């Protein structure tokens, strides 16, 4: 397909056209807009976006305004996977009947927050993946329900404060660990699954390209720092995103037709403290708790290195 010819290798290869434009009401410093802007640059104008309820949806389509220059549809919180399945099936049927020109390529993208994919939207996402629709599902993961005011989700990491895992006498933030969507998606038999980070736009954009070029469902799970819910100053969004990878809290990896790889190797890891200390949602953590989180990461890194067959994520900086 057409994307192969324009493989993104540097920032200069990222298409100039904007299909996600200003005039929306996302918080200042919200990194969701960075992700969506890049997503649409890569996908181009022949794209239909199905958006689950959440921050992106409510902040970008306040009637009579819209920030979308591609056809866009929102139905509800939990059904982006199902709606996108319908969109894709309709295009197929209508092409077969000559109602849409056969050669017309239309990307179908489902876009959802962690709630609209990990939790309430999980069933519809699972159905979409299992049935094999040619849809790219993009999760922007701000690790809580931000639209309703920072409640925990299945993506909230251990130790994070949210309004439903408040720091109180008996609760000290989220006490469970994040659900693993990467392997859940692979277990559905997908050809292409990736995790991405807006602090590494070229890596992220290549993953969007590959996802769109997959002949079937694909899933790209993107970490998304949220100034309001993570409690940091708006200017630190990308800094924090970068630290997530540098500390290996977030690993940029890819599963491409059976091949696993880490696309952003880290030679020497920073201590997780560097990542946590910039965010108000972790400000209650004791040194002991931070060490506990560090140990969780160490274990994960070991596992990833074993899976990659070499040391792609290095040891902690001295």
């Amino acid at each position, binding site marked *: 397909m057409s994307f192969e010819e324009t493989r993104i290798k540097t920032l200069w290869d990222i298409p100039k056209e904007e299909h996600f434009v200003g005039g929306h009401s996302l918080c200042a410093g919200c990194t969701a807009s960075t992700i969506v802007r890049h997503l649409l640059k890569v996908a181009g104008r022949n794209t239909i976006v199905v958006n689950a309820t959440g921050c992106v949806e409510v902040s970008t389509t306040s009637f009579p305004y819209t920030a979308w220059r591609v056809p866009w*549809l929102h139905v509800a919180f939990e*059904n982006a996977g199902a709606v996108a399945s*319908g969109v894709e099936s309709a295009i197929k049927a209508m092409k077969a009947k000559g109602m849409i020109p056969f050669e017309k390529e239309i990307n179908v993208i489902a876009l959802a927050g962690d709630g609209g994919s990990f939790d309430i939207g999980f069933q519809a996402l699972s159905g979409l993946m299992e049935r094999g629709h040619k849809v790219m599902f993009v999760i922007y993961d701000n690790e809580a329900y931000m639209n309703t005011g920072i409640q925990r989700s299945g993506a909230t990491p251990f130790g994070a404060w949210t309004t439903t895992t408040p720091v109180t006498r008996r609760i000290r933030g989220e006490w469970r660990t994040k659900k693993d969507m990467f392997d859940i998606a692979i277990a559905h038999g997908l050809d292409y699954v990736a995790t991405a980070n807006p602090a590494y736009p070229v890596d992220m954009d290549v993953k969007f390209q590959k996802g769109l070029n997959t002949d079937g469902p694909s899933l790209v799970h993107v970490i998304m720092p949220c100034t309001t819910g993570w409690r940091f100053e708006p200017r630190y969004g990308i800094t924090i995103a970068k630290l997530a990878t540098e500390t290996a809290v977030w690993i940029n990896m890819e599963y491409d037709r059976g091949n696993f790889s880490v696309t952003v190797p880290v030679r020497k890891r920073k201590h997780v403290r560097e990542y946590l200390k910039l965010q108000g949602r972790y400000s209650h953590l004791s040194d002991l708790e931070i060490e506990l989180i560090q140990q969780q990461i160490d274990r994960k890194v070991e596992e990833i290195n074993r899976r990659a067959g070499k040391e792609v994520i290095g040891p902690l900086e001295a």
Partner: protein
Amino acid sequence: MTAVIERRKEMKALSTNKAVAEAVKDSDVDVVAAYPITPQTTVVERIAELIGEGQLEAEIIHVESEHSALSAVIGASAVGARVFTATASQGLALMHEVLHITSGLRLPVVMSVAMRSLSAPISIFNDHSDVMNQRDSGWIMIFASTAQEAYDSIIQAYRIAENPEVLLPVMVTYDGYLMSHTIEPVEVLGKYVSEEYIPKKQTWNVLDPDKPITMGTITSPDYYYEFKYSQAVALEGSLPHIIKADEDFRKLYGRGYGVVDSYRLEDAEIAVLATSSYYINLKYAVDEVRKRGIKAGAIKLRVYRPFPREQLYSMIKGLSALGVIDRSVSFGMTPSGPIALDIMSSYRYRDAPPVQSFIAGLGQRRMLIEDFVKIFEILEKRAATNSISEKSIFYGVKGVEL
């Protein structure tokens, strides 16, 4: 003209479920998504066979729930496809959220419902609790009384839903088991109805990359109300289009149903109103009680939303009493039958006959012609003694005196 019509006709022995599947094929639907639930299941099974046999060229989406079934056909309809889904009971209840979104988005989705009771306790059998729970969801609701009517109504439903003056989803409902699983002779029209009566035309706003639009936005208090008002106006205003679709159908194919129907009402003093398959036995009961000297008539309500106020009023206005049979309960309300309530509130400023509400057949409690005769007798007695009650009569409940 007649010669052409003759050529098109073909008689088949079909259950209402199979008749609906046949209508979906003849409507040349593009995308079908449905989830199995008794007694609807054989509709989609048959559609899958028709697609498999190459008789219908469509995509079938094997969704993982009814919520996703309706969501998927919304997505398909938003791109411009002609779509269909089917369900019943818990499945319809699970769709509740999405039913409102379908009508709010003004998408011409057509759905069949093989009506069934709601849990708890579980009953797979017939009553109308499922659809009555959805009466305020902004859909056009048509009750079919025969397999033939169900077939014809599905085809009419596309004509109505896709009418640019309407653009509302349509639900065609019929009695689970009593109709879904009983076989009747059905005259099918063949696929060219989709060229002749319901030609494919995208009359609604669709998602097209060449003309991008944003669909399903958020609104502020400055706009939401106007959307809902225009929806109310559209549903109210759809009635003449429903009537016209039926009349045009009759002209072309020789069958029409109106929005209400009646039997031996001309000189009737009392009448009983019923929906769906009950109307058929009610007509037999009319003949029976007339032999005993009771001037009785039967009324059928076919279109329930929009409510055919004037058409029904012209039928009932001269009666001395009207009985209304509901097959669901509006809990905590007196009377407890939703249709009876609708009729009473519709004509509260007019000279209308007293209404006696009957609840019957919940969970498919057996109703024979004798039972309809008894209902006429109760109504006759109450009318004669001026003792029509505000309370519903729960006909056929064990241990409750009438």
